[in-house]
């Protein structure tokens, strides 16, 4: 073949051959080349297989139903310039509306925080479950301060540090409860923002298991000071017990059956006293 720099341009030509982008003359040339070079024939076959695999893998996306928001956009969209004047008029109203929304939001928050005696203000339960859902599945950063040390001494020092830090920030004694008799060990804790100040989160996991089963325990200043008995709530997989004892509100969250979670809550309750 009279192509001195065949090596440089060959992959491009083979690739274009596969895409049927060659002139008839070039095509005939590559046909002949492939006939004599089985290794290149094999290479092009692999490329063709990759192409087919790509098509097979990504084709289904085009078969998905069109999201309604995109369809709506195409059928109803008005270009920005058209409604610029309308936008200006609307801007004045928007400032007013924003004020109203902020006012409503504040009122909602205040209402939410003001349902005193049972100690779990509206939203606290949801926030606590949310915190569990966010942090418990973390593989590498489940806690802010870990108590898992290289040696028993390290762990002990970390536990002391965690307890002191949380006690100071939450402004009430944060005892690191021992749940080993119930099959759970402490891995560490973190501080969470709450509506009335910081809240401590302690994380435990089933001894000898990884992230699969974890429970989180919460301590914070309650909204009311009236002692409240155990209350139970469930949201999907997650169960939660909460109560108020002394000047501290407690909660425990985990995706465990009610009885198991209650056993943990009772163990904590006993250790508080």
């Amino acid at each position: 073949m009279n192509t001195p720099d065949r090596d440089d341009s060959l992959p491009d030509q083979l690739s274009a051959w596969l895409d049927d982008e060659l002139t008839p003359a070039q095509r005939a040339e590559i046909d002949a080349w492939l006939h004599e070079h089985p290794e290149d024939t094999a290479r092009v076959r692999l490329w063709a297989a990759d192409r087919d695999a790509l098509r097979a893998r990504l084709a289904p996306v085009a078969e998905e139903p069109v999201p309604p928001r995109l369809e709506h956009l195409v059928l109803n969209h008005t270009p920005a310039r058209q409604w610029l004047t309308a936008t200006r008029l609307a801007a004045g109203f928007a400032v007013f509306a924003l004020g109203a929304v902020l006012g409503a939001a504040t009122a909602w928050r205040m209402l939410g925080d003001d349902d005193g005696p049972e100690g779990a203000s509206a939203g606290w339960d949801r926030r606590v479950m949310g915190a569990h859902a966010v942090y418990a599945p973390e593989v590498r950063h489940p806690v802010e301060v870990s108590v898992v040390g290289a040696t028993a001494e390290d762990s002990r020092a970390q536990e002391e540090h965690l307890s002191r830090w949380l006690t100071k920030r939450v402004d009430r004694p944060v005892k690191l409860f021992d749940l080993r008799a119930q099959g759970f060990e402490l891995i560490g804790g973190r501080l969470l923002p709450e509506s009335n100040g910081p809240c401590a989160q302690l994380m435990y996991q089933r001894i000898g298991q990884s992230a699969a089963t974890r429970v989180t325990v919460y301590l914070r200043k309650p909204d009311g000071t009236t002692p409240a008995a155990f209350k139970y709530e469930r949201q999907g997989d997650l169960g939660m017990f909460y109560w108020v004892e002394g000047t501290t509100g407690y909660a425990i969250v985990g995706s465990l059956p009610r009885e198991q979670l209650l056993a943990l809550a009772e163990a904590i309750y006993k250790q508080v006293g």
Partner: protein
Amino acid sequence: MTAPTAFRQQLLSTIPRLRRYARSLVFDASTADDLVQTALERALAHWHQFDQRRDILVWVISIAHNAHMDDRRRRSHLVNVEPLDLQDGPDSVAAPASDPGLRMDLVAALSRLPVEQREPLLLVTLEQLSYAECAEVLHIPIGTVMSRISRGRVALRALLDGHVPATPTNSATRSLRRVV
């Protein structure tokens, strides 16, 4: 004047393939649909620039490509992590939702190709654009389309065979500049 109904209907018909193209560019379904939305908005705002003799899909894909490049430029000061690189990282959460139909090897390999090679390769193999149409969408010469596709194929095959090129983005970008 807003876009006429006929144009809107034409545009509507491109959405499935536009979504597929966007998904192959950015992988994450909702980010991809955001890109589609941006492209559709731009198309509707500039409908009068569309030449009816052209293929509307090629036109809209070219708008999506520009939007994607704008987006990359805007974020270029941030570290760019391809979502699929994160799949098995140590920072991931336990049991990430996995799509059993996902052919991880292929898609992971695809995501590791530099975008300069991935785009023309996908436009030609998946969307079945011609080299000329691809050149038009990407604003590059046909010869460059040809060489990027062939290098994309070689790189993809190497990745699928388990040869991981060192720092794919840096070295690939540098060698790409030489070609252009």
